[in-house]
């Protein structure tokens, strides 16, 4: 019991140290610097493009897809950061770094637009393949070069199958959700 109490406080003390370090660094090197404004610009721009391109008549469906993408992206990003597979050296806000990472600015918007435009599995798979390749081998090296992202125990091509599987899973999930709704609506009104 005593061990458990001291054990728990070790983790809390370490977390305290980590957070204060992050905040110090953020105050000294991130906030109001050029990269920081660039990141905010990336978020605003992607939101703007998304709002322009999104099919408003299908808004609930596209936002459901984007929301699920956000959850998956946040979870994977945070797990990778906790396992020190990668790191985000520049943050808009000091805490919960994945929340303000470029991944979150770009992935949900791109994924949900691909979902919106590609109505068949075939076109969807081809587009996803190209997007994942661009992401892993062009976009991510650029981010590393710009100092927004840092690979620790990771390789660019590890992400490639993950991006593809994520896209397939999310499309399958949203289609499934709508299929369940349609099926139960039919069961309720069999006369139609």
């Amino acid at each position, binding site marked *: 019991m005593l061990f*458990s109490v001291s*054990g*728990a406080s*070790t*983790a*809390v003390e*370490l*977390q*305290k*140290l*980590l*957070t204060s*370090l*992050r905040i110090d*660094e953020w105050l000294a*090197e991130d906030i109001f610097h050029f990269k920081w404004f660039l990141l905010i610009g990336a978020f605003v721009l992607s939101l703007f493009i998304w709002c322009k391109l999104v*099919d*408003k*008549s*299908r*808004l*609930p*469906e596209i*936002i*459901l897809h984007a*929301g*699920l993408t*956000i*959850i998956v992206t*946040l*979870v994977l990003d*945070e*797990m990778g*950061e*906790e*396992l*020190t597979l990668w*790191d985000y*050296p520049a943050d808009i806000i000091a*805490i*919960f770094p994945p*929340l303000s990472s470029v991944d979150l600015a770009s992935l949900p918007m791109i994924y949900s637009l691909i979902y919106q435009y590609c109505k068949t599995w075939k076109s969807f798979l081809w587009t996803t393949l190209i997007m994942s390749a661009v992401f892993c081998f062009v976009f991510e090296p650029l981010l590393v070069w710009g100092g927004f992202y*840092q690979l*620790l125990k990771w390789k660019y091509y590890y992400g490639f199958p993950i991006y593809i599987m994520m896209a397939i899973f999310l499309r399958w999930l949203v289609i499934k*959700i*709508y299929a*369940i*709704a349609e*099926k*139960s*609506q039919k069961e*309720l009104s069999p006369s139609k």
Partner: protein
Amino acid sequence: MLLSVTGTAVEVEIQKLLTSTHLEEWLQQDVFHLKWWLLLVLSGLAIVVWWKLLNKTRIPEIMLYAVLTTIVMMSIDECGEELILWTYPIYLFPIFPVITAINLLILPLAFSLTYQHFHTWQSFIYASVVITGLESFIFEPALAWINLYQLLNWNYCYNFLIYISVALLIRWSVIKIFAIAEKAQKNPY
């Protein structure tokens, strides 16, 4: 530049240490222990009950509500844990523990069902106050009492205010999203 490199490196080292502490503690004290099973059963039960009560014909709408709530609550929960406002002494899963926290699971499930059942603002607000009250003043203190949740620099009233604000904000958002879609369907350019 040198400072930035070393600063980041120190941060990464501490993160490594923190994660290995979480993992070690989890392996030694959490996983397969009684409280861990309790958490697992509670979480499974919550999902099953939610699925049973869910109005399947409106599942995209209810899921949208649940998904948006999850995003907001997950962010708040993780920020609070990083700022040492609260902590979870027993983890269901040691990496990104917040996503498997029981009170994080309960909120989207409970609020999305509230959203499903109450169609007016007035009834929704009353129901949310009751549910948030139960969550913040009964369920969470009970979790804290059996040492599954621990407030450090925080109190239950703050949670109450946050939860109720999130519930109202998300309801407003979902209604707005559907209103925009309806308007767009009526006037296709």
